[in-house]
C-alpha cells in the first residue's frame, strides 16, 4: 500500500472510529459504584423548589452511605415518555419516581426491578407499607414493581368565605348538593367549581371515581376494555355536566391543563376544587390554610344498583429501580432511605401528602384536617385504578375524549348521552 493510500485508509478508519466513539459514550455515572442518578417527579410548586427540598436529604444519604445521588426533577408532562425511553433503551437513571397508576403499564415493559420478598426486605419489609398504597404498585398476582413513596387521595377543597357569603354552612356531601351550591356560588364573575378540563390524566382519574359510583368498570375481569357501558356514559356525563348543564364551571376551564384550576381556587375565582393534596400548592399561592376547608369528595344521593362507595383513586407516587442499574444494592438502599420514617415525615410534610409507611403516619405532622381527610379516604373509600398494562392507554384515550367533550360544552355544543357514548366507543375501539 502506497503512503497516499495508507493515509486515506487511516483517515477512513479514524472517521469510522470517531463515529462509533460517539455512539459508545454512555452513562458513566451509573457505572461507578458510588453514584446513583434519580429522576424525581415534580411534587412542589416548581422544579427548583423540589430540588431545594430534596438536596439536603440526598446529602444526608451521601453522608450515611458514601453514595452520591444526582437528582433531576422531571415535570409530569414529560415523565411517562422519559421513563418509557429509559425502559426501551436501557439507558437512564437508576432510581425513578412513577405515578402509581402507571405501575402495571411500566411493569409490563420488564424494565423495572420487581420487589419480591427479598427485595422488599432489603427496603425495610412489606409490613411497614400501607396496604392500599402497595396495591397500587404493580399488577395483581405479581410482585410490586415499585415501592410507595407519597400517598395521596382526592378531597373537596372549598372556600370558607365564599360559602359563608352564600349562606352555605357545610360542604356538600352529594353531587346534587354540590351542583346546587355551585349555582349559588357562580355569580359576579366567580364560579362554583374549578376543573382541569384539558388534562387527560386528571379527567381519567375522575372518570374512574364517577364510574365506580355509577357501578361501572373500565376493564372487565379479563382485562378487556368496557368503556362505553351505560354506567360509564352516565358517569362521564355527570362530570361534564358541571360545565355543560349545571353551568357551575367557567367554560375557560376546558382549556386548563397546567394546574390553572388550583390557581383559580387560590385566587378566589372558584369556590370549590377536587384535588389531591392541594395544601402545599395553595400555600405557595398565598392562600392561608384557614381560608379553605377540606372535605371528602361527594357521592351520588341515590346510587344506582351496583354503585360503589368510592370517592377517590388511591393516588400516589412510587419509587422504582431500573433493572439496567449497575448499582442495584445502592439503589435499594436509597429506596430504603427515602421510605425510612424520618424521610417520610420530612418529605410528606413538605409536600402535604401522606407517608406510605404505617410507622410514620402517626406523626403529629399529619393530623391537620387535610391530612386527616386524605387518611380517612385512603382507609375507607379509595380504590386503586385498574392495575392492567393498558392503564396508561386508558388515561390517554378516555381523558382525551373527556377533553373533547369539555371543549363541546364550553363552546355551547350539546353534550348528550349519545355524544358521550360515541366518544367512549371510539376510545374503546382504539384499544388494541
Amino acid at each position, binding site marked *: 500500500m502506497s503512503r497516499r493510500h495508507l493515509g486515506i485508509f487511516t483517515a477512513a478508519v479514524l472517521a469510522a472510529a470517531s463515529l462509533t466513539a460517539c455512539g459508545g459514550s454512555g452513562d458513566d455515572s451509573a457505572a461507578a459504584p458510588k453514584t446513583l442518578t434519580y429522576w424525581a417527579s415534580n411534587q412542589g410548586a416548581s422544579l427548583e423548589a423540589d430540588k431545594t427540598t430534596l438536596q439536603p436529604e440526598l446529602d444526608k444519604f451521601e453522608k450515611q452511605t458514601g453514595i452520591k445521588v444526582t437528582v433531576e426533577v422531571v415535570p409530569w408532562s414529560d415523565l411517562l415518555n422519559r421513563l418509557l425511553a429509559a425502559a426501551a433503551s436501557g439507558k437512564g437513571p437508576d432510581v425513578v419516581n412513577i405515578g402509581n397508576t402507571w405501575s402495571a403499564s411500566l411493569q409490563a415493559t420488564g424494565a423495572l426491578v420487581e420487589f419480591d420478598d427479598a427485595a422488599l426486605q432489603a427496603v425495610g419489609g412489606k409490613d411497614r407499607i400501607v396496604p392500599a398504597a402497595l396495591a397500587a404498585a404493580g399488577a395483581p398476582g405479581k410482585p410490586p414493581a415499585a415501592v410507595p413513596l407519597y400517598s395521596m387521595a382526592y378531597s373537596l377543597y372549598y372556600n370558607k368565605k365564599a360559602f359563608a357569603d352564600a349562606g352555605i354552612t357545610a360542604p356538600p356531601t352529594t353531587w346534587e348538593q354540590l351542583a346546587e351550591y355551585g349555582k349559588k356560588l357562580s355569580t359576579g364573575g366567580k364560579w362554583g367549581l374549578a376543573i382541569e378540563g384539558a388534562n387527560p390524566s386528571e379527567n381519567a382519574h375522575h372518570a374512574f371515581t364517577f364510574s365506580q359510583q355509577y357501578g361501572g368498570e373500565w376493564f372487565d375481569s379479563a382485562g378487556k376494555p368496557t368503556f362505553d357501558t351505560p354506567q360509564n356514559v352516565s358517569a362521564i356525563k355527570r362530570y361534564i355536566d358541571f360545565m355543560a348543564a349545571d353551568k357551575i364551571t367557567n367554560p375557560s376551564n376546558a382549556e386548563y391543563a397546567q394546574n390553572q384550576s388550583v390557581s383559580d381556587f387560590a385566587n378566589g375565582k372558584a369556590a370549590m376544587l377536587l384535588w389531591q393534596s392541594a395544601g402545599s400548592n395553595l400555600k405557595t399561592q398565598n392562600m392561608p390554610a384557614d381560608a379553605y376547608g377540606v372535605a371528602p369528595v361527594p357521592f351520588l344521593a341515590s346510587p344506582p344498583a351496583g354503585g360503589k362507595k368510592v370517592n377517590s383513586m388511591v393516588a400516589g407516587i412510587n419509587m422504582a429501580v431500573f433493572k439496567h442499574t449497575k448499582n442495584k444494592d445502592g439503589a435499594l438502599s436509597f429506596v430504603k432511605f427515602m421510605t425510612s420514617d424520618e424521610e417520610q415525615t420530612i418529605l410528606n410534610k413538605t409536600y402535604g401528602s401522606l407517608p406510605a409507611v404505617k410507622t410514620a403516619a402517626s406523626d403529629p405532622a399529619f393530623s391537620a384536617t387535610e391530612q386527616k381527610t386524605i387518611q380517612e379516604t385512603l382507609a375507607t373509600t379509595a380504590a386503586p385504578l385498574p392495575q392492567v398494562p393498558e392503564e396508561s*392507554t386508558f388515561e390517554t384515550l378516555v381523558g382525551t375524549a373527556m377533553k373533547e367533550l369539555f371543549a363541546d360544552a364550553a363552546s355551547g355544543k350539546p353534550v348528550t348521552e349519545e355524544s358521550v357514548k360515541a366518544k367512549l366507543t371510539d376510545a374503546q375501539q382504539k384499544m388494541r
Partner: protein
Amino acid sequence: MATSTTAPDADRREPQAGSPARRPARRPRGPRRSLLPYLLLVPAIVLELAIHVIPMVVGVWMSLLELTQFHIRDWSTAPFIGLENYRATLDLNSAAGKELLHSFWVTLAYSLLSVGFAWLLGISAAVVLQKPFRGRAILRALFLTPYALPVYAAVITWSFLLQRDTGLVNHVLVDQLGLLNERPFWLIGDNSFWSLLVVSVWRNWPFAFLCLMAGLQNVPGELYEAAAIDGAGFWRRLRSVTLPMLRPVNLVLLLVLFLWTFNDFNTPYVLFGGSAPEQADLISIHIYRSSFKTWDFGSGSAMSVALLLFLLIVSAAYLLITNRRRDDHA
C-alpha cells in the same frame, strides 16, 4: 470513469535515470488507483446508512410487529403480524382509520393554506424590500425575527396570547377594540385550526421571504429596464419578469415548505400539548399519540411508513410535473 482521474501526462514523460519515476509508485496506475473515489465515498455512505437507511428499514420492520409496552425493551421479540397494523390503522370503517383520515385532511388543508399564505407574505415582503430605501436593513432584520426565535419560546408565547381569559388576543379584540361581544376560544374547538395556521404562517413566512429575497438578487436589472422601456407597469413586470425568474427558487421553496409543514410537530405540540383538539389534530401529533401515549409503536410505525410513501409520491409527482413544464418551456 474512475481511470479518468489518473494524470495521462505523467505516463508519457520519459523516465530519467535515478529519478523517483523508476520506482514502482510511478508505474502506470491500474485498478488500485481506481479505489480512491470509493474510499472517499465511504464516510458519506456510512453516514447515510446510519442516519437514513437503517432507521428507515427498522421503521418498516417495526410496522410489521405487534410492538407494545410488552416488547419495547427488546423490540426484536415482538410478534410478527404482517400487515395487520396497516389494516387496523388504514381501515376507514374503524375508529382508528376514520381518525387517521380526519387527521390527513386537517393536515393537508393546514399545509396548503400555511404554505400559500407564507409564500404570499414572503413574495410581497421580498418585492417591497427589493429597492433600497432608508430603514430597509432594519425591516429585513425585523421580518426575519420569527425565524430566528427558538420554536418553543415563540410558540409557547403564542399559547399565552391565545388563552381565552387571560390572553392578549382576546383582550385586544374584546376589551380594547370591542370587535366581539364574547371571548372566543382559540386553543380548543373550531378556532384551534385557525390559531395553528396563524402561528405556522408567522413561523414560516420569513423563510419564504429569505429565499425569495435571495432569488431576487439574481434577477438582472436590465430585464426590468427593458420591461420599463416596453411600457410594462408594476404588475406586468411582476408577472413577466420577477415570477418567471424566481421559478427555480419557488420550485424548491414550495416543496420544502410543504414537506416541513406536513410533518410539522413542534408547532401543534407546544401550542396544544400531546392531545391536540380534534379540529387541529395534525398527522404528526396523531402518530405521536399512537406511539408514545397509547404505546402502540407498531401502529405508529405503520402510519409513519404510509405517510412517508404519500410524501414520496407527492414529491415525485410535483418534481415530475414541474420538470416537464420546464422542458416544455425550454
